[in-house]
């Protein structure tokens, strides 16, 4: 089966969210996603793998397999887990170059922008930066 592109996965997410007509269902879905997040191995739950800039603790790891990046994450807050689960669904399984050059338009389009805006202390911006930084490292680029 042909792997979905980053753009196609985002379109799937937009479609799924369009089925919900209120914030509660959207959050219930995010909480559900959070509960099924690929969990970071216990030995990686250290300062080294912690994302700075989130009110909750978030750990993120990535490995390159057959040219594709696979992410794992965990958090002590379930909504944060749900948010990062969405990001992992979009990014995981793609090449570092695709991830570096991707545009995450879905956040604006799932009607969650006011909830998932970079100004909030949910660390969305940090999460995206850390995920892209892993891609840059694996692509041999420098990281700010």
């Amino acid at each position, binding site marked *: 089966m042909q792997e979905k592109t980053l753009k196609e996965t985002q379109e799937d997410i937009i479609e799924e969210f369009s089925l919900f007509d209120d914030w509660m269902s959207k*959050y219930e879905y995010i909480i559900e996603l959070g509960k099924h997040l690929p969990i970071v191995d216990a030995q990686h739950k250290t300062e080294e793998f912690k994302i700075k800039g989130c*009110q*909750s603790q978030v750990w993120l790891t990535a490995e390159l397999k057959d040219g594709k990046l696979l992410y794992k994450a965990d958090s002590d807050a*379930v*909504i944060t887990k749900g948010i990062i689960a969405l990001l992992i669904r979009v990014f995981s399984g793609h090449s570092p170059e695709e991830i570096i050059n991707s545009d995450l338009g879905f956040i604006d389009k799932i009607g969650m922008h006011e*909830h998932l805006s970079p100004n909030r202390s*949910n660390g969305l911006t940090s999460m995206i930066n850390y995920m892209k930084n892993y891609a840059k490292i694996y692509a041999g680029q420098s990281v700010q």
Partner: protein
Amino acid sequence: MNNEENLESDRNDIRTMNFDVNEIRNLFPILSLRVHDKPLVYLDSAATTQKPFSVIRALEKYYEQQNSNVHRAIYTLGEEATAAFEDSREAARKFLNAEKTSETIFVKGTTDGVNLVASTFGESVVNKGDNVIVTQMEHHSNMVPWQMLCKRKNAEIKYIPVDEKGELILDGLEDMINEKTRMLSLVHVSNTLGTINPVKKIIEIAHSRGVPVMIDAAQSVPHIKIDVQDLDCDFLTFSGHKVYGPTGIGILYGKEKLLEMMPPYQFGGEMIIEVKFSGAKFNELPYKFEAGTPNIADAVALKPALEFVEEIGYQNIYEHEGCLVSFASEMLSEIEGIRIIGNASDKAAVVSFVIDGTHPYDLGTLLDQMGIAVRTGFHCTQPLLEEVYRLPGTVRASFGVYNTIDEVNYLIDCVKRARNMLL
């Protein structure tokens, strides 16, 4: 309420609630906002209070009719701005019952007040091998400046411990104070736990050993009458924005004899009396500590904020907010898995809590969806929550004079709803 009735109730029972909370709410334009299409329920007054019309109008009036630089102006407008600015200082002096206007310094806020004292008084009196005492429940603003001072001076910082209930353990204080103790600085009301500390008693103990005391009154000024002469504190500081006034302005009170001996904090305009190429002579108090053009507009608008509090009366505020806190604590306690953090016998308008199996961030996020503004996290008391209570933060509901029992009821319903979604 008619005036006769009002007087009558004053005479008969000073504890009678003398105000209508709905009338008070009408003075705060922001409280009629809607958030996520629900009425705003603002329960974050410990972070900053909302502003009444009188404060907003004073800011407008200043920029529309009074704006010009203070002091030294020879024209009418400048004199008017100076008069309004100094008038506000006098209002703050009266508000704190300071003896002299020269003891009332305009600062940016509590953080600025503490930094000023740590960098001037602290810098002068703390030397290698000395120690400074604070408490485990300090806000970072009354902890980090002292930590940094002690680090610079190779001095020790000591912490008065906090017990399970959230009260200071004062048994060891006498022993903690020694001949090397140069300063004791503590918070009057904890922003995280709500604990009202027995500052008068602590000041007495410290003074009996010759140690000066600074009070962080950021969280007490909105709820408790402060009388600096009665407390006999050496320094006290608060922020205007936590007492219904503007951001960016606060007051530092200091005893004149201490302020006189302290070096200036910053250097430049306003704080000098004479400058030559060879050096400068500094201005008298309070101007010695007010370098540069001050925050005139916000200073002027602080006065109506203090008047707002005085008009309602601290007894009324204390009673009304006391009802809200007791009711909220009681109702929250009935929710399964909830723990209220901070159960001091004397508490101000703060209720901090956690729910087993949920993260404060998750609860706060869902409460926001329901129109409720609460704060989540460490509340700038990270060592207290992480190292004493071993918590990743709390959800904190804090009250102002404009909050209602209906809002508390709504909070309880929403906390239950959020809990069900998360667990």
